[in-house]
C-alpha cells in the first residue's frame, strides 16, 4: 500500500471511530450477509416463510394453530408486499418483541418468545441477508383467525401473561460451548416452540422445559437427558448425527422434525450441532425410577404381540432393534415411551416418510396400516411396543386411535 493511500485509510478509520457508530458498510460485507444467511437457516425462517415450490421467503405457508389459521407473510425485500421498506429497528421489534410495523401485535406462531433472546448483532445479520434476496411479489394476507382471536390487541394480554422480552446473559459457570448450545436451542433454534408443553393459551409452560409437547397430531418428544423418555441414552455423537443427517443408529426423523433437519440442522456447522448436543445432555431428566411394564399376559400385550409379529417384525425385528438408518429401533426408544403416544398412533395409521439428506439420502418410509388395523388393534400393537423389550409406558386406548383418525377425517 502506498503511503498516500495508507494515510487516507487511517484518516477514514479515525473519522469512523469519531462517530462511534457501527459502520453501515459492515452490514453489507460478505461476512455479515453470509452469517445472516446461516443464522436464517439455523432459525429455520424458511420453515414458515417459504412455501414448498414457492419463491424463497415469499411466505404463504399455512400454519394451523389451535386458534385458527395463520399464513406466514412475505419477508423478501419487496417494498410493497415484503419488508424491504422496513427500518432495521422495525425488523428487530418484529423478531424480538412480536410487534410488527406500526406496532401491531404479532401472533406467537412467529416464535418471538424465543427470538427475543437473540442478540441484536445476529438479528441485524439476518436482516442484512434478507435484504439481499430476490424481492417476491407474493401478496399474503396472514391473518385468517376467527373472532375473537383476530383482534390483535388480545395479544397485549397474552404478552403480559406469557411473554418475557429480553436477552439471557451467558452463564459464566458453564463452558462457552454450553452457552452457545443454550443460545442455539432457546433463541435461534426455538426448540421449545414444539418440544415444550403448551398452556391453554398456547404459551410454553414454565415447567416441562423441552420435556415434550403436542403439535397437531405430532408429539415432539422429550429432548432432555431423561434416560426413559428423553435422549439420555444418546451420546453427543448420536445427537450430532441425528441433527446433521436426520438418522442415527436408533431412529430417523420424519414429520415436522424431518422438515427441521432438512431445512435447518443438516446445514449447521459441526461446532453448533455439538454445542446443541452438549447443552441438551446437560438437562437432567425427571423420571425418578423406571415405570413397570405391563405384564406379558395382559390381553392387550398378547394381541399386540401377535399383530406386531405379522405387521411390524419384518422391518423392526422380533427384538425391536430395527436397522440403523432404515428402520427405527423401538426397544429403549424415548419416542416409543413418550407420555403422549400421538406420533406413534399417527405413524401406525398413516405411515410416515423419513427425511432424506445428502449424508443419509435413503428417506425410507413406514407404510400405513390404518386401512388394515382397527382402533383396538392399533391400540394393542402400540401398547405392546411401549411395554416390550424392557420398554415401559402407559397403555394406549382404542379411543386415542379413533381420535387421531377422526382428526384426519380418515375412516
Amino acid at each position, binding site marked *: 500500500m502506498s503511503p498516500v493511500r495508507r494515510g487516507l485509510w487511517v484518516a477514514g478509520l479515525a473519522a469512523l471511530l469519531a462517530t462511534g457508530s457501527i459502520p453501515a458498510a459492515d452490514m453489507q460485507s460478505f461476512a455479515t450477509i453470509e452469517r445472516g444467511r446461516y443464522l436464517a437457516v439455523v432459525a429455520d425462517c424458511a420453515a414458515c416463510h417459504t412455501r414448498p415450490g414457492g419463491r424463497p421467503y415469499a411466505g404463504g405457508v399455512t400454519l394451523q394453530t389451535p386458534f385458527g389459521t395463520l399464513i406466514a407473510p412475505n419477508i423478501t425485500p419487496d417494498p410493497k408486499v415484503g419488508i424491504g421498506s422496513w427500518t432495521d429497528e422495525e425488523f428487530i421489534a418484529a423478531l424480538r418483541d412480536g410487534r410488527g410495523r406500526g406496532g401491531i401485535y404479532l401472533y406467537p406462531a412467529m416464535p418471538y418468545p424465543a427470538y427475543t433472546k437473540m442478540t441484536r448483532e445476529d438479528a441485524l445479520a439476518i436482516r442484512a441477508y434478507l435484504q439481499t434476496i430476490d424481492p417476491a411479489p407474493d401478496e399474503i394476507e396472514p391473518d385468517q383467525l376467527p373472532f375473537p382471536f383476530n383482534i390483535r390487541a388480545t395479544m397485549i394480554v397474552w404478552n403480559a401473561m406469557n411473554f418475557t422480552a429480553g436477552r439471557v446473559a451467558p452463564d459464566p459457570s458453564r463452558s462457552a460451548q454450553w452457552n452457545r448450545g443454550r443460545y442455539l436451542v432457546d433463541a435461534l433454534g426455538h426448540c421449545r416452540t414444539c418440544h415444550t408443553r403448551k398452556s391453554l393459551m398456547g404459551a410454553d409452560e414454565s415447567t416441562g422445559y423441552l420435556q415434550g409437547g403436542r403439535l397437531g397430531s405430532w408429539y415432539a418428544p422429550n429432548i432432555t437427558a431423561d434416560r426413559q423418555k428423553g435422549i439420555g441414552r444418546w451420546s453427543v455423537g448420536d445427537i450430532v448425527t441425528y441433527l446433521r443427517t436426520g438418522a442415527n443408529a436408533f431412529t430417523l426423523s420424519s414429520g415436522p422434525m424431518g422438515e427441521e433437519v432438512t431445512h435447518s440442522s443438516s446445514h449447521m456447522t459441526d461446532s453448533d450441532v455439538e454445542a446443541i448436543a452438549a447443552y441438551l445432555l446437560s438437562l437432567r431428566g425427571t423420571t425418578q425410577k423406571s415405570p413397570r411394564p405391563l405384564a406379558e399376559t395382559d390381553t392387550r400385550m398378547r394381541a399386540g404381540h401377535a399383530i406386531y409379529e405379522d*405387521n411390524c417384525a*419384518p*422391518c423392526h425385528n422380533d427384538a425391536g432393534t430395527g*436397522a*440403523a*438408518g*432404515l*428402520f427405527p429401533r423401538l426397544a429403549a426408544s424415548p419416542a416409543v415411551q413418550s407420555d403422549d403416544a400421538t406420533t406413534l398412533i399417527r405413524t401406525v395409521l398413516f*405411515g410416515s*416418510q423419513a427425511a*432424506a439428506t445428502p*449424508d*443419509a*439420502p*435413503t*428417506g*425410507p*418410509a*413406514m*407404510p*400405513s*396400516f390404518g*386401512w*388394515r388395523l382397527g382402533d383396538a388393534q392399533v391400540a394393542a400393537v402400540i401398547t405392546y411396543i411401549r411395554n416390550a423389550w424392557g420398554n415401559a409406558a402407559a397403555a394406549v386406548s382404542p379411543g386415542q386411535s379413533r381420535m387421531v383418525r377422526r382428526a384426519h377425517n380418515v375412516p
Partner: protein
Amino acid sequence: MATKLPAKDVAIIGLGWTGAILANELSDQGLDVVAIERGPWRDTATSFNIGYAADELRYGVRLDLFQQPAQSTVTFRNRDQETALPVRQWGSFQPGNGVGGAGVHWGGQTWRHLPSDFRLRSHLTERYGKSFIPDELSIQDWGVTYAELEPFYDQFEYLAGISGKAGNLKGVIQAGGNPFEGPRLREYPLPPMQMTYAPTLFAEAAQSVGYHPFPSPAATLSADYTNTLGIRMGQCTYCGFCVGFGCANYSKASPQTSVLPVLMRKRNFEARTECEVLKVNLDRSGKRATGVTYVDSSGRQWEQPAELVLICAFAFNNVHMMLLSKIGRPYDPNTRKGAVGRNYAYQTYSSVQVFFDDKIFNPFISSGACGQTVDDLNGDNFDHSGLDFIGGGSISCQPTDGRPLAHLPVPPGTPRWGARWKEEAKKNYLRSFGFASQGSSYAAYRNHLDLDPTYTDRFGRPLLRMTFDFPDNDVRMSNHVVDRMELIAKAMTPRHYVLDRRARPYSVVPNQSTHNTGGAIMGMDPSTSAVNKYLQSWDVPNVFVVGSSAFPQNPGYNPNGTVCALAFLAADAIVSRYLKSPGRLLET
C-alpha cells in the same frame, strides 16, 4: 399436434434398472436429464405396503406389476410360415411396467457371464473348429470382453449389495465360490445368504456326482448394507415374495431401493410417469435423433427435444422402439441382411421336481435368489468334443417361494381337484422342491423380431412380432443338461422325481422365463449388429440402446447382472468419450 417442450440434454425411455443407472451417472455430470416412463410411479412404502405386498392373487395371479396386454403386447408365431397372433395374457414371459421396471419384480439372481460367453463364436471356432458351430445358429461375439466389463460388473454388484462368494479372485480360485467364473478384482460386497435345507441337500447331491456347488449370488441382501450411493438397504427376511412382487423391506435391490432415493433428489433430473413414448424423432437425414414424442395419461402429445436419446425399455420393447422410429435397418431372415430384430433369443429353461416322504423343506422360507448353483454344465465349461450341441446351462436350486396359490406341487397322476388332490397337496407342500437349469439360448437365423403387418396398439402403431422356436441345438443341449440333473436328483434318493424337458415347438403359454434377449444386438460389424460395443446405434449415433436387447445370444444365466454392467459401460463411454464430441460414432 404434439406440443414442443423446452429441450433437455438427455431423454431416457423407461425408468427401470438401466434408465435409472444411466440417469444417475449422466446427471452426476450436470446434464439435464428426463426419464419418460410408460407405467406408474412406484415407491416401496406406498406401492409395496407390507400389508398387501404379498397379495398373491393381485401380483402372482393377476400380474399387477406387469405390462398390461391391453396397453401393449406382442404377436407371436413359431416360424415365418405361420400367422402371428397377439399374446393377450402373459405366460412364457412377463414384461414389467412402471418405475423400476423388471427391477421391481425380478428374483435377484445376479450373474456375470463367463469370459468365453463374450467371444462365443471366436472361442468355439478356436477350440473346436469352424464347422463345429451348427449352421442354424447366428451366434456372434459381443465386441466387449469380460475383462472390459469386469469393473462395471463390480460397480453394479456394489450398488445392489449382491450377496455371494467369489470363486475367482484375480485368477486365484477360491474355495466355496464358482470355480468357473471369470476373475474378479474383489469379493462380493456381502456374504452369501443363509442356506435353507433344499439347496443344502441339492449341493450335497451335486457334489456327490462330481460337480462344484456354490451359493448363488443374490440381490436379496444377506445383511444390512449401505450402497455406493450412500443408500441404506435392509437384510432380507426370506419371506419368499420376490419373483413377481415388489419388496416391502428395502431388501431386494431395485431402482427403488438402490438408485432412486439419490436420483430423485437431483434438480437436474425429472421423471415423467404414465407417459408413453411413441417414437424417437429423427432429423431429415435420419442419422440424428432430435428427441422423442410421447403421450401423457390424458392423451395429450408432447415433443421432448433432446441432444441424446437413451432407449432403456424392456428388451423387446427396445427393438420395437427402434423399428417404429426407423433407427437401423430391419432384419430380413430370408436374406439374413439387416440388424434390427436380428438374433432374438430366449432361455432354454428346464427343471426337475423331487418329492420326499421323510424330509421337510419349509418352502415358505426363501428368497428369489437364495440357493445353490453348479456351473459345471454351463457355457463351454465342459468339453463339447464328441457332443452334438454347443452351449449349456447353470443348474440352480433356488426355491423362490412357498406361496399358497401357485406353490402346490403334486406328483404326476394326481387329479386336478377333489379329495385326492387335497390330500397330495397337503402331503407334498413341505416335502418337495425343484431345481432348474437356465439353459443358454443361442441365436438362430430364423428367430427374429419385426413389426406385425396386422395388429396394432391403442395408438395404431404396429405391434412387435416375435418369431421364435427352440433351435435343435438348444433342445439337444437342454436334454444333455437334464440328463445330468436327473443324476443329481437320483443322488438325493427321493421318493419320486419329475423331469420337465424342453421340446419343440416353443409355447408362449406356460411360464418359463422373462429372459428375452437380442434384437438390438451389440457387435463389431454394423451389418450384423444394431449397436456398437458401447450400446451406441451404428446408424443414429446420438441414440444408445441399453438392455438385454444387446445380447447377441443368451448365455446360461439370468441376464440382469450383465444388463446393468452394460448400462454402466454405456454410461462410462458417454461420459468419458461421447460427450467430448457429441453426435459422433465412438471409435471401437
